[in-house]
C-alpha cells in the first residue's frame, strides 16, 4: 500500500512546497522594490537652467539628481578640436555631433565613469588634463572638449544627460 501511495504523496508535497516557495519569493518583491529611489526622489529628476550669463569659454556646474552636470560654452577652437578628432583615437568612439544638440553648448554629467569622482576643469584655474577638457584627480582619467575619455582607467565617455532647449538660452535637463 505504501508503495502505491508514495508518488502521489510526493507530488502533493512537491507542488505544495513549490507554490509556497514561489509565494514566499514573491513576497520579496515589495521589500526589494522599496529600496529603489522613492517618488519624491524621482520628482526632483528635472532641472531648468538659464544659459545667458555664460560667456564663451566659461563653464557652469548645476545639480541634477544630486549629481553635478557640466555645461560648457565651447569656444570655436574647442569645437574644432572635438570635431576633428579621428574616431580611431577614442577608446569609446563617438562623434562630437552625437554628443551635442548645438555645437557651442556641451552638456555632460560631471561624474567620472571610473568610480564616480568629480573631474577637475570647470574653473579657469583648474587643470584640464592632456586633452583640454577635464581631468579626474582620483585615478587620472583625461577627458577631451567633448567629454570623451582619452586616457586613464575610465571605461566610457562622460554621459550626456537627456535635455531639451526650451528657448535659445534656456535648457531643461531630465
Amino acid at each position, binding site marked *: 500500500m505504501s508503495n502505491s501511495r508514495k508518488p502521489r504523496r510526493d507530488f502533493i508535497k512537491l507542488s505544495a512546497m513549490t507554490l509556497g516557495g514561489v509565494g514566499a519569493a514573491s513576497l520579496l518583491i515589495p521589500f526589494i522594490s522599496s529600496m529603489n529611489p522613492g517618488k519624491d526622489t524621482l520628482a526632483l529628476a528635472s532641472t531648468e537652467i538659464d544659459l545667458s550669463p555664460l560667456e564663451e569659454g566659461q563653464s557652469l*556646474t548645476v545639480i541634477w539628481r544630486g549629481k553635478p552636470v557640466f555645461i560648457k560654452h565651447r569656444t570655436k577652437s574647442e569645437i574644432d578640436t572635438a570635431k576633428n578628432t579621428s574616431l580611431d583615437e577614442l577608446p569609446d568612439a563617438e562623434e562630437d555631433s552625437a554628443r551635442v544638440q548645438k555645437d557651442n553648448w556641451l552638456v555632460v554629467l560631471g561624474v567620472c565613469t571610473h568610480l564616480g*569622482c568629480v573631474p577637475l576643469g570647470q574653473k579657469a584655474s583648474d587643470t584640464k588634463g592632456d586633452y583640454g577638457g577635464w581631468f579626474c584627480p582620483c585615478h587620472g582619467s583625461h577627458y577631451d572638449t567633448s567629454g570623451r575619455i582619452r586616457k586613464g582607467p575610465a571605461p566610457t565617455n562622460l554621459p550626456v544627460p537627456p535635455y531639451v532647449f526650451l528657448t535659445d538660452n534656456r535648457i531643461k535637463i531630465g
Partner: protein
Amino acid sequence: MSSDQLQGYKKTLNSPYTGIKGWIDSRLPLIRMMEAEYLKFPVPKSLNYFWSFGGIAMFCLIGLILTGIFLGFHYKPSAEDAFDSVERIMRDVSFGWLIRYLHANLVSFFFIATFIHIFRALYFGSYKAPRELVYIFGLTMFMLMMATAFLGYTLPWGQMSYWGATVITNLFSAIPVVGDAILQLLLGDFTVGDSAVNRFYVLHWLLAFAIVGLVVFHVITLHMTGSNNPTGSEPQSWDETVSFHPYVTIKDLNAALFFFIIMAFILFYYPNILGHSDNYIKANPMITPAHIVPEWYFLPFYAILRAIPDKLGGVIAMFSSILALGLLPWLDTSKVRSCLFRPIWRYCVLLFAVNFLVLMYVGGKPAEDIYVLISRIGTAYWFLFIFVLAPLVGFLETPRQPLTITNYLQSKKA
C-alpha cells in the same frame, strides 16, 4: 506507559548543580554548557601568544558594540544632520570625544588583531582539516567586518566618508548590464545621499550583530575540533592539555592588557593618526578631494583593485583575493600543518605576510607607474601563493616529522 518506552522523548532534567543554579540549569542548560566549553575546556598546553588574538579581537568587538550603542544615542543618520551630530558628540556631549575616539580606534585595533589572527591560522596551518569550517566562518566574519567598517566610515559624513562611499558603491556599477540598476537599488537614489546614509546606518548595526552571530558558529566549530597549536600535532593525552580556565583566560587577559595599552597610547595621544584629516570637512558632492585614500586596513585590497587596469577586472580581483583564501584548506596538499616543520612553505607564508604589508604601502600611494608596478607584482604573488604554491609546495617539499606537544615543549626548554 513506563519511562523506558519514552526514553529520548525529553531532554534529561537532571542538572549537575543544586539549588537555584540547578533549577535554572535543568531548564536552560547554559550553565552546564559554559562550564564544559569555557571553564573545563581542554586546550593544547603548547599554545603561544599568537593564540591570544582571537580573544583580543572579541574584546574589540564587544568594545565596538558598547561604544556604538552610546554613539547611536546622539548620532543622526541624515545627510543634513550627520556631520553636525558627530561634531556635537565631539564638542558638546559629555565624554562624547572619548566614546567616539574609542569607537574609531578600536576598529583599527580590531583589524590589527584580526590580521595577526589570520596570519596565525596560515602559519600554523589552523585552516587545514578538520578545521576548515572554523577558518571559513572566520573569513566570512572578516568580510563582514570590512563591510561594517566601510559602512561605519561613511556615517560621519565628511569628505572622505562621502567620496569613499561614492567610489566603493560605484564598484557595483562595474557589473555588466544591471550594474547601474543595482547601484540605484543599493543607494535608494542616483547618488550617495540622504537615503544612503540612513540605510548605511541600519546596515552598520545589522552587520555588526551578524558578526556576533558568526562568532558563535566560529566558536562552536572550533570547540568540536579543539584548538590547533604551534606543532600542528593533536594532543595525544590529557597530559598535553590544560584547562581553558584559568590557564588560557589569564594568558589572554595578559596579552589583551599589553594590546590595549598600545591602543590607549594611540587613543589618548594620537587619536586621529589612523584617520584622514579631510574627514573633518563636511561632505560636498560637488568637490572631490585631490587624494582619496581608504582607511589603512583596506589599503592592501585597494592596491589589488588598482593593480588591474580594467574596471570590472579590478573589482573581481579585489573580491576574489579574499574568497580565494577560503579555498586554501583544499589547495594546500601537504599533510603537515605547522610551518615549523615545512621548510619551503614557511617562507611562502612569511613572504605572503610581507607582501600584504607592501600592498598596504602602495595602496596608500598615488596610482603612479612604480607603485602600480609594485601592486601588480604583489597581486600576482597573492594569487600565485594560493593557486600555485599551496598545491605545488605540498608535493615538492619534504617536511620534517612534526614534534609531539610534549617533545616540542621539551625542545623549547633545552
